[in-house]
């Protein structure tokens, strides 16, 4: 009689542990999927914002036609790559192209921002200050969205590999999640600012 009760208690404890582990894994998995979707939202915002910003800056930065051109063309390339990737999700080739295009765009924007810093006339103008703020903020948001995704994936993977929950994870087929790759090495160089 006592043994039966003991057994029931043990089973209940095990059941609770399994349930808890499963629920936490599900929660963490959904969090990182949400974070991934957020990246796309920010990228779209960036695509929409860039043409307007460049137009506003054109009037002031007459000496910087090349930089502006680079930004616009990089933006268009990234936009097409993104649309193509949306049509074939998961295809590694298009994903790679998207990553490269995004990296080029980040580099071009970085160059643009650095160059704009050298124009105090530009900086004094109120509209342009706001425009620069929006641009910096958009870049930050894209970066933070990626960072947040990586953090969420890390938390999920940790939980997946810790002791009691790894048994649950294997039992219910929770796969390891992939972190976002870094930008292509040739674009990692900081933008050259020539005085």
């Amino acid at each position, binding site marked *: 009689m006592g043994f039966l009760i003991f057994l029931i208690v043990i089973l209940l404890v095990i059941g609770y542990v399994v349930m808890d582990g499963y629920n936490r894994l599900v929660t963490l998995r959904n969090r990182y999927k949400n974070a991934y979707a957020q990246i796309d939202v920010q990228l779209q915002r960036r695509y929409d914002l860039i043409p307007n910003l460049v137009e506003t800056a054109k009037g002031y930065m007459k000496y910087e036609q090349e930089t502006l051109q680079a930004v616009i063309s990089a933006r268009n390339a990234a936009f097409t790559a993104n649309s193509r990737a949306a049509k074939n999700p998961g295809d590694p080739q298009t994903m790679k192209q998207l990553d490269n295009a995004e990296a080029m765009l980040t580099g071009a924007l970085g160059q643009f921002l650095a160059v704009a810093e050298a124009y105090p*006339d530009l900086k004094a103008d109120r509209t342009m200050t706001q425009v620069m*703020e929006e641009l910096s*903020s958009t870049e*930050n948001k894209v970066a933070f969205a990626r960072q947040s995704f990586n953090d969420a994936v890390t938390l999920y993977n940790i939980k997946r590999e810790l002791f009691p929950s790894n048994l649950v994870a294997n039992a219910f087929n929770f796969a390891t999640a992939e972190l976002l790759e870094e930008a292509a090495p040739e674009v990692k160089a900081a933008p050259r600012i020539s005085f």
Partner: protein
Amino acid sequence: MNFFEHQDRAQAHTQKLLGLFALSVLCIIGLIYAATIVVLHLAGIGSSPQDCLTSSPPETATQAVLLSHATSSQTMPQTVLTIGNSAQSNSETLLASRRSRSSRSPSRSRSNFSGGSNRPTTNSPDHRSGDWGDGYTLPRSSDRNRTSTQQTGCTAGKLALWQPHLLFWVFLSTITVIGGASWYKIATLQAGGSVVAQELGGRLLIAETASPQERQLLNVVEEMAIAANIKVPAVYLLDHERGINAFAAGHTIETAVIGVTQGCLDQLTRDELQGVIGHEFSHILNGDMRLNLRLIGLLHGILFVYLTGRILVEWNSRDYRWLWFLGLALALIGSIGLFFGRLIQSAISRQREYLADASAVQFTRNPDGIAGALTKIGNFGSQIRSPQATATSHLFFGNALSLSMLDDLWATHPPLLKRIQRLGGLQGNFALATEQYGGSSHALSSNGMAIGFAGGSAGTIAISNSSPQSNPDLDLQKALQQPEGATAIVYALLLHPEFRDRQIEYLRQIEAAAVVDKTLELSSQIEQIKLRERLPLLDRAVPALRQTNVKKLFGGVQGFARVEGQWSMSKFIVLMILQQRLAAKPQPEQFSSLSEVWSDCEQIIAAIAQAGQTNGQSKPDAIAYAFRSGLFRLPGVREQAPSTTPPTGNFNQLKQSLTRLNATSPKLKQAIVDACSYTVLLDSKVTDEEAELLRAVAIVLDCPLPPFLEKRPVAARRK
């Protein structure tokens, strides 16, 4: 900074402290139990042996408890039911026992001892009414009674230390008292985050109507929300707070809001602001406000124990001195418990602050941001002055404990120095001589409503060896952002050493006293600024100047010149730039060919050539040479007849020329500016006067500044 490790450590510490808190609550219960036993013993209950052997209701609650516990329900069908044993019910039952001793009614026993459940049983109706009818009402009047029992094993007069049943009831009732009071407190404190923010004087920021500074704040909050992976909370701005501080309020992620002081926006850079907001997001994400609220609720519950004791002490029980003792014991236990509870709560709060700092680094991946903000707080203070801040505190904490709060043990935030060290080191030449924590920020977080960024007023922190440049810069920066300050800067730039007093006198007549004072204040700092940097300063003042009476400003500048008796080039430049920036009317294009504006071009280039040679010796040859070379840079110069000597003119003519040139085509304007630049660079020397004039020309003609103007002055090359 390895923030994950710091976060784990802070979480572990919090768990330990929470365990300590629970332990202390258990200790309180244990002490109450011990006190109950002692008091009962002292009250001499259980002294008459013959009561034990009769069938009358047992005199001592303790004896009855022993009996009912010792026998199981099967063997003793007439076993009495339990006796509630909180402090109150104890006294009630004892009261009942005294009364019922006199009126002995045969007792009926009920056999309903089922698994420890307590159904209130009564002897007889008259008992009930009689026992509790003398106005002895306590908040927890438990309706318990004892019925008679067949006694066996009555321990007459002996005090048993281990009485599990008593312990159980002490436990249960104390938990109920504490839990009930804390639940009540939590329910009353559970105002939504926006309510708290508004009480503190916050203004909700809306994206469409936000100023650029506020817009930046909103952007920063959005960025942190993305990094923390939660929804964007509402943002409130405390306009009238000059200290650097921020708070998070609201107990769930959905109702959370963030509040920021105006001082934050004014003093902090974007990175530092991001660090502060990240810190606040950590509070929201980790539920620190909810935790704080629960702790406060529990402390309120412990306070209730203390209050119960005090009620018992003050209730004039003539007959029952033991009540008084019990009350005293409860009050003592309650206050000690409150003391240690507050200590633990403060310790938990400090750990959560460390956790928040580490999480801020996780979100921003930049420890310098938050470290910089902390450094600035160390220099400038974080005190919240809003009177509503103290009003939202709950004064009874102050009344219950009349202990001084100015102690590190009670600080809700860790010391600034330690926080900066954990983030990875001190920045700049900043040293904290002394630290003191004011009371108002305590109040802010002591009621669990909002958790701030830095504790207390750092206003008494001594600043050590701040370099002379940094202080004026900050003064100027602050002045730049206000209309008054910006106006003062303009006037200070124009003060001439010789005519200073008359200029100030003139200024007093046209401008407000505040502006005049500010002008005098800033003039010494402005004098230290190099000539080359004065015009950029003017440019930076423009946004704030737009909000002032622009005509008055122009009039003031002209008045300064009148006082001096003549126009100087610098005044002229300043006036032209201000007019262009603040009152420029869109000019229709009137001239498109060089011939129409030829004389104006000559004027301008002559002025620039002149300006390049103003180091005491005017070499007319050099000026003429520069003049002609500059002219020849203009497109279509061959068709014109350049003068051999540069024309001289007064400022009025110069102004007219510039105005006319402003009405030419952009291409021509650009060409003119290029020619001017060439003139300036001709002798490989860029003097300050040349630079200023060139800059003014470029601004007035609405052309981009030639890049070399921003570089440092080129060292003079000897010819």
